[in-house]
């Protein structure tokens, strides 16, 4: 019996390793060791007022700060029976589109693409692949511009609040965003075809159960009241605990979930697999052109799915800005009351995110947060096991470190989020 443990995983967000255990017959087990420290966010918010919670939970993660913040804001609104005005809902959607562009853009170009072009980093590929590296830099600038304009800061902005915004962006600022997004469309198309055409190793391929939030309405939105599972099952968001049954395991500060005993995956590939037919415009054309049956079995296709979502996001922005600018700024919503409970679900870049709060006497009594990477952790181990077995069968154990990194990386794991 021996265990091969990778070095500290690189080009991921957080601290962890993969440990492969094998005996003479082959690989027996793979563990995703997560030793990123626990920060106890679900306890930090206890005893706080609803207004204090969004700023605290946004600090769970820098890449999906907006998703955490808006999940908390929406849960509080639901618990306190506040209905936000339409302009507020639309600005939140714009903010989430910006976050998706920023997070996916960071991941596909800076973290993932180097592997597929044979480089250890985006810096190293700057000479030979200058055009691609430049797109990688510009896509983040676009995402951050959107987040800063609507959110107040590019990371952990305090502008989105319960009931509305501290300060509404000027029409001109949003027109500038619209123009910037429009100019980026050809580069987003290039991104979608670049990743759609990559030939991907199928070492980790295996049938996968997917889950995501069924978008409300008919579009490819971020929120809804129903959880969709690729087994054709549907759950109410309120019953998220039946999907994510969070258990503590001794090798991981991030809790683990299985749906009816089976590991499952959330994220871009889950969304495109289950609701890709709702993509429109060029994104709709691209999913028709590139999506095939290999995608849903191979987690490496998450990057192609992210590329499609970047394109979808930039195409959605111009008409969204027009609609926002056609509405006047609402007055501040005041609220009272201190009893209630609610669950809110948001599709953050990494996948379905759930925030649940109970309020009593005007303060938070309890909180539960289930993050996407925590839900993916079991399936990450499973796909790594599949890949590790193939490598051993081919006597390619020397590739374990590289391949395990690639499989984990494909999930764009946010280890800091997963522990929280």
């Amino acid at each position, binding site marked *: 019996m021996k265990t091969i443990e990778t070095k500290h995983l690189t080009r991921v967000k957080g601290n962890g390793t993969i440990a492969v255990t094998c005996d003479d017959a082959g690989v027996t087990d793979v563990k995703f060791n997560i030793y990123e420290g626990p*920060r106890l966010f679900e306890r930090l918010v206890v005893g706080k007022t609803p207004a204090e919670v969004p700023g605290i939970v946004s600090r769970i993660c820098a890449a999906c700060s907006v998703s955490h913040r808006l999940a908390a804001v929406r849960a509080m609104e639901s618990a306190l029976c506040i209905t936000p005005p339409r302009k507020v809902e639309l600005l939140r959607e714009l903010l989430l589109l910006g976050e998706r562009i920023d997070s996916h853009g960071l991941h596909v170009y800076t973290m993932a693409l180097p592997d597929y072009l044979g480089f*250890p980093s985006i810096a190293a590929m700057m000479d030979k692949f200058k055009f691609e590296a430049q797109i990688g830099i510009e896509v983040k600038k676009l995402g951050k511009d959107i987040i800063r304009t609507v959110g107040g800061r590019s990371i952990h902005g305090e502008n989105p609040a319960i009931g509305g915004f501290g*300060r509404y962006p000027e029409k001109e600022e949003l027109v500038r965003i619209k123009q910037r997004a429009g100019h980026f469309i050809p580069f987003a198309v290039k991104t979608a075809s670049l990743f759609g055409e990559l030939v991907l190793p199928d070492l980790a391929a295996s049938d996968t159960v997917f889950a995501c939030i069924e978008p409300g309405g008919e579009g490819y939105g971020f929120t809804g009241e129903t959880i969709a599972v690729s087994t054709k099952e549907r759950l109410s968001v309120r019953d998220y605990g039946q999907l994510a049954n969070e258990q503590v395991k001794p090798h991981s500060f991030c809790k683990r979930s299985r749906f009816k005993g089976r590991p499952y995956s959330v994220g871009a590939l889950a969304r495109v697999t289950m609701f890709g037919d709702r993509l429109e415009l060029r994104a709709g054309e691209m999913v028709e052109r590139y999506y095939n049956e290999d995608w849903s079995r191979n987690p490496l296709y998450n990057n192609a799915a992210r590329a499609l979502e970047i394109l979808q996001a930039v195409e959605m922005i111009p008409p969204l800005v027009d609609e926002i600018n056609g509405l006047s700024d609402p007055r501040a919503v005041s609220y009272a009351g201190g009893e209630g409970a609610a669950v809110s679900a948001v599709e953050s870049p990494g996948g379905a995110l759930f925030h649940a709060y109970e309020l009593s006497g005007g303060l938070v009594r309890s909180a539960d947060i289930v993050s996407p990477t925590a839900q993916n952790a079991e399936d990450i181990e499973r796909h790594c096991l599949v890949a590790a077995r193939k490598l051993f069968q081919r006597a390619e154990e020397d590739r374990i470190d590289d391949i395990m990194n690639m499989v984990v990386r494909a999930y764009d794991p946010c280890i800091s989020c997963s522990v929280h």
Partner: protein
Amino acid sequence: MNDGSTKTGIYGLTGCRGDQLTVLDCGDRIIELLRGSGIRSFIMTASDNREGRMDIALVEGSVSTQGDKEGLLSIRERSDVLVALGTCACTGGLQAAFQDWAQWQENYGRVYGDPEMEHTAPCPSRPLDAYVKVDFHVPGCPISEKQLLHAMKSIIASGPPGPDARPLCAQCALKGEDCLLRKGIACLGPLTASGCGAVCPWHNIGCTGCWGPAGEPDLEELPRLFPGGRFDAAFIRRMMGAFSGARIEELTVRVEGVMK
């Protein structure tokens, strides 16, 4: 290889990665500053990291596990200048609200139960300087690019300067009648370190103290903070407690000293 570059390592202990992402966003500006092959280790963005001696180590995050502590000691030992990057590294951050061991254990137990964890032991979160000498603190949640570049320039040119001790009001555009405190909006600016450009007050949102306590808080503004409130230790702890982490006691003592 001595190519005139400033050998730099960028590390994260326990935190949200926001400060490292901000370093990344500095892009060309930081690469120019460090020259040549400056960045030797940046695990979040590269796989060909070279450890060993560093001229400058930037470390984000709090020490929240035994593993974090060991990692930090190693980085300190092989680095000439150690910079605490961000509020978690400077004060312990949000997660350092539970400073008392028993209080931390109770809350940890509520989240995890009482499992035997295999790889490393967790602990109450502390800032870097609870365990090692820190040469320079760059607070922020996350840090500001401008403040970071300014700090790096100073360090490379002539060694670490002292941090700016003034409170946030020094950077805030809302003076006189525009001050949020005068409008009855709770704002922790007078007690909070500057560096963010007062972006939240600009959005009509009171400062939440996320840069940690100011070196020289403006204690004359205190009576205007939450008019009618009692400015005692409990009050300060509640208001500044979210981000001031392990630094809260020092701040409380100072405030109480003035209020007497």
